[in-house]
């Protein structure tokens, strides 16, 4: 018995057992079950039968599902670009020598740690059609003459949700990139400056290449979680107005849980998987750590 427990294979798998059991039952199995459900006509409270590609064929022709795909792609692209740009800028600013540096960093991360559903409520109030303080301020400044209907008009609503997502996501990206910036040896910048590089050249040819690996990881996470975002939309618009902010995740919830069509919802969720996989593969093969970035030959 004791010999057996000191065998690394036996003990290894024994130690792994609790984590593996939980993950297999509640992660791997549902992942497979979700794909299988997508091929059935399961409803809430009623088991389904295999109907092949019917759900997928229906969804491909469904104008709301098509719109949700467009919205998801727009939301992900717009929010990711903005989050990356602003996040990198904020990271560079936080890397400067400023007073109250550590306090600043702690404050900056607040939007990320607070429950998204609750901060989204604050945005809902900020975007209120009648009492929005944003509209109030702009009116007092004389920039607009009537209150903006932030969530009532399709394109306003799309940009408003993107703005709320960017607000929440920038701190995460900034703090992660800041951690990356601090690993870059300052001597490289000094050497570049001695060689006459301008500030922009220093950034473009020294900072950015060294930061690429961490940018790749951080942006992969950001794209994955923006693409599958749910709570922000659920709280702010529930997909409206006219389905113009429905993401694939919110639409699959809507169809599956209140709508009861578990099979159709699961099919919609399964349709997200190819996009997620391609994002992961893109960052893995396109942006992964190169040997020269670790000091080796290319």
């Amino acid at each position, binding site marked *: 018995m004791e010999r057996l427990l*000191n065998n*690394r*294979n036996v*003990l*290894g798998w*024994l*130690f792994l*057992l*609790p984590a593996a059991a*939980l*993950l297999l*039952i*509640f*992660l791997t199995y*549902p*992942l497979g*079950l*979700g794909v299988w459900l997508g091929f059935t006509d399961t409803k809430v409270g009623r088991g389904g039968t295999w109907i092949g590609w019917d759900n997928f064929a229906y969804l491909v022709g469904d104008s709301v599902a098509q719109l949700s795909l467009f919205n998801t792609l727009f939301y992900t692209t717009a929010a990711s670009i903005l989050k990356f740009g602003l996040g990198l800028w904020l990271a560079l*600013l936080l*890397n*400067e020598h400023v007073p109250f540096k550590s306090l*600043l960093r702690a404050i900056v*991360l*607040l*939007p990320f*740690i*607070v*429950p*998204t*559903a*609750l901060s989204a*409520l*604050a*945005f809902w*109030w*900020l975007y*209120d059609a009648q*009492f929005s*303080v944003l509209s109030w301020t702009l009116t007092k400044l004389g920039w607009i003459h009537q209150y903006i209907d932030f969530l009532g008009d399709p394109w306003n609503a799309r940009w408003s949700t993107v703005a709320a997502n960017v607000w929440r996501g920038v701190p995460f990206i900034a*703090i*992660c990139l800041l951690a990356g*910036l*601090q*690993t870059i040896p*300052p001597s490289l910048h000094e050497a570049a*400056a001695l060689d006459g590089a301008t500030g922009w050249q220093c950034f473009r040819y020294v900072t950015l290449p060294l930061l690429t690996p961490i940018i790749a990881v951080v942006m992969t*996470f950001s794209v994955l979680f923006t693409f*599958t975002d749910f*709570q922000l939309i*659920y709280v702010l618009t529930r997909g409206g107005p006219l389905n113009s902010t429905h993401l694939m995740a919110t639409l*699959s919830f809507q169809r*599956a*849980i209140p709508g009861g069509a*578990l099979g159709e*919802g*699961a099919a919609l969720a*399964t349709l997200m*998987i190819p996009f*997620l996989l391609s994002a*992961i593969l893109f960052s893995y093969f396109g942006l992964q750590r190169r040997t020269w970035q670790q000091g080796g030959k290319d």
Partner: protein
Amino acid sequence: MKVAAADSQSMSYLQSLPRRVVTVYVPLVVFVIVLLFPFYWMATTAFKPDAELLSREGNPFWVHAPTLAHFHKLLFETPFPEWMLNTMIVAFVATFTSLAASVLAAYAIERLRFSGSRQVGLAIFLAYLVPPSILFIPLAAIVFKLGLFDTRFALILTYPTFLIPFATWLLMGYFRSIPYELEECALIDGASRWQILTRIILPLAVPGLISAGIFAFTLSWNEFIYALTFISSSEIKTVPVGVVTELVEGDVYHWGSLMAGALLGSLPVAVIYSFFVEYYVAGMTGAVKE
């Protein structure tokens, strides 16, 4: 890291002060104002009387006659305290279960190096990338079949699916930094693997445990889609779901109590975060950097 951080400023004296004000301080102040404004707005709304909330006159950025009426309504006329308690229970139990499972798994993968440990490590990382919004429908079916629908156990058992991959990945990094020699000494002295783990590795990995624990706790506190799908009775909802689904009544929005709920519901994570900022950041960036 400390030295590098101090050194990286060595060239900033090359910039003149007015230039730094424009390129560094002004943008930084704008960032901070934008990032904090929703919280300020949440807080002022929670303390404003209804009349002030719905008037377009006067300065909306200040509370002229602060009131605790919204908090009173929230705490005594809604199930908000119960939601707080539920979230606390679920988050604590899920965090501790996940940490225990993750410590064992990370130690096995990183130190026991059983055959296949590399593949398992990779699988754990991939599990980290599976978003809850593609899992909630099949999980709802499973939870229903297990008879756990509308119970706290539904959440306690499903939260580890996103906590364990993250915590294991983070702890693997911490264990890697502990020298092998310590373990070898203990092995020679006749310690069992279990003794090594509990007496040597764990005490050395306390910072890692705190990081993983804090992060896991906030993740469970903030979780939304599972709690929304698996729970339907008001008295066992979690704070984010309860505030969003129950405090919004019809067309008349009670902004005051809604914002009071958002504020109080965010407070526990904000307080924990403020005590453990360094650990939290280490946890967040550590998991990404590996």
